[in-house]
């Protein structure tokens, strides 16, 4: 079992003929993901990576019955691609693209209010993977293994780091979700934790947050109301200075909001173990 993505999920890749789209569509197919097509305006009717290419998402959905999409288009076109996916009938949209202007993401979020069933992951994220089954995005399959640990994270490489450590110590994962490092995002920690809570195959949870915003605190509030998951949280950026943007546009402390301390305290208050280094996560989870 898993959340959001399983072997029956029919997936398209927006931007499938691009360099990134081609490479990662290949990786997704190799793992067994049901990639049923892709889009690339002007290249409809051709075949790429063994799947049909369509001009528009709506066309792809009509022809393939796809319900999920991975977006690998360049930043100037990515916000529009998300909205096209929603309007075209996709219900799980995973946007990998980094560097979308924030005002465009704000408009996208408003647009998606008209599509209450649509779930957006990202942008600026590594996507999600249900180990051994399927993935949408760029998380390398070989660092993962199937099992009961849910993993949700804002960061790409830290996700990989923790997934490898879990895999190496024999703790497999139900689903790994990278929600992304931008300030205005699709699914939040709280949304993903809620999904894991309902997935009976998930018994443990790792939350990897970072400085900035208050999404971690919201997830902690949810966990504080009672959870069946054994949870460990880790926050990166505890030594980052105020007002400096640390790579992720979202990772910035302003005033006393968004500090690692406030996030760690929120998790501790919820009875969640807080790891001080990523090396401690596996031990605390056992």
């Amino acid at each position, binding site marked *: 079992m898993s959340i959001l993505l399983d072997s029956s999920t029919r997936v398209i890749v927006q931007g499938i003929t691009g360099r990134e789209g081609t490479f990662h569509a290949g990786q997704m197919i190799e793992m067994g993901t049901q990639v049923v097509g892709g889009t690339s305006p002007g290249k409809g009717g051709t075949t790429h990576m063994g799947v049909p290419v369509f001009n528009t998402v709506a066309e792809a959905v009509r022809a393939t019955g796809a319900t999920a999409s991975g977006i690998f288009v360049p930043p*100037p076109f990515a916000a529009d691609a998300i909205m096209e996916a929603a309007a075209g009938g996709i219900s799980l949209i995973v946007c990998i693209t980094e560097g979308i202007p924030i005002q465009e993401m704000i*408009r996208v979020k*408003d647009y998606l209010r008209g599509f209450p069933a649509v779930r957006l992951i990202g942008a600026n994220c590594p996507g999600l993977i249900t180990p051994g089954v399927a993935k949408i995005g760029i998380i390398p399959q070989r660092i993962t293994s199937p099992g009961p640990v849910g993993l949700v994270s804002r960061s790409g490489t830290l996700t990989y*780091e923790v997934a490898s450590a879990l895999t190496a110590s024999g703790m497999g994962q139900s689903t790994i979700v990278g929600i992304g*490092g931008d*300030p*205005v995002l699709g699914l939040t920690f709280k949304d993903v934790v809620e999904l894991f809570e309902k997935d009976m195959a998930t018994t443990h949870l790792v939350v990897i947050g970072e*400085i900035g915003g208050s999404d971690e605190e919201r997830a902690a509030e949810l966990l504080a109301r009672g959870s069946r998951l054994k949870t460990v949280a880790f926050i990166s950026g505890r030594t980052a200075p105020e007002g400096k943007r640390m*790579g992720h546009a979202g990772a910035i402390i302003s005033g006393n909001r968004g500090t690692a301390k406030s996030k760690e305290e929120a998790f501790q208050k919820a009875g969640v173990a807080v790891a001080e*280094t990523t090396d401690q996560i596996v031990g605390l989870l056992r």
Partner: protein
Amino acid sequence: MKLLEYQAKEVLSSLGIPIPAGRVARTPDEAANACAELGPVAVKAQVPVGGRGKAGGIKLVNSPEEARQAAAQIIGMDIKGFKVPLVYCEAALQIEREVYLGFTVDRDARNNILMLSAKGGMDIEQVAEESPETIARLHPNPWRGPLDFELNQLAFEAGLGDLARPLTSLIKKLYRAIPELDAVTAEINPLVVTKNGEVIAGDAKLETDENAAWRHKDLEVRFGSVLEGDPYEVEAKKRGLTYVSLDGDIGIIGNGAGLCMSTLDLVQRAGGMAANFCDIGGGAKAEVVENALAVILMNPRVKGVLMNVFGGITRGDEVARGLVSARDNLKMKLPLVVRMSGTNEEEGRQILKQNGIEPGASAWEAAQKIVELTKVPAPR
């Protein structure tokens, strides 16, 4: 990009918002001339940080001679790490009232938030803490912007109903900075109501979105080169690296923002202080590693370098070979500790060892090692 006050005012003026008469002065003579032309002026340091008034960066003067002296004092001054490149001499206003007006991105609401308060001229964060009810707020629809009646309500909520008309018109102009310039933060504090009833921007802050810089190249051309900025950050930007200067003496290279940030944390936990944040992104190609090392080694404070790389797809032996050649090309003699994982990590570690680079088994162990190695003064 964070604009300086005079730059932000130029932008506000182009949006139709009234600003006081002012002149940029790069020398004391220019400041004296500005005062001769404008009469009594405020001589204001131009730096992209708040609190310049408290730091002595604003002086009110009545004569060209006073303006000359004030500018001589302020130009070149250090305010919160920024060397003042120039001053802005602005005609003094006959102030009747001061209002706060601003917008920023409200992350929790996933929208922009407009804020208006009758308590202008004060630190708005302090106002927000002490009397949050005095700040009226509005989340405009991001597709169509604020409507007149919404702004009218906002003005009345802020206790500024008597100014509702001029404020509504002015806020609509300010809001244009969002769709037209990809502004993420703007602040007019104070927005001054003068004794003859004019509403005019007393100060201005404006920050635009780096992610949208590609469609506002004109802003970069007009305003980009005034500030000297941190020399390492400038060089890193040229080389296409994500780099932030910090106060410590241990250079850091990591791939991925989260991993890199957590590496800074580990170094501090081990008793050291990072000299920088440097994210080389996925791949860890030899050329990128060499660029990162080159920038870090420019900083004479750096006593050693810690590199923390997770190789998702990259092979450890390739990363190791690239790193050895980068170090040799740069003739680097400082201690270098590398923690890497991923495919072929064992081969990678062997290559590092053979070339005198310390491989750390875990990130935490590597952090402790570099702190230990940099405690004694190292030869350069």
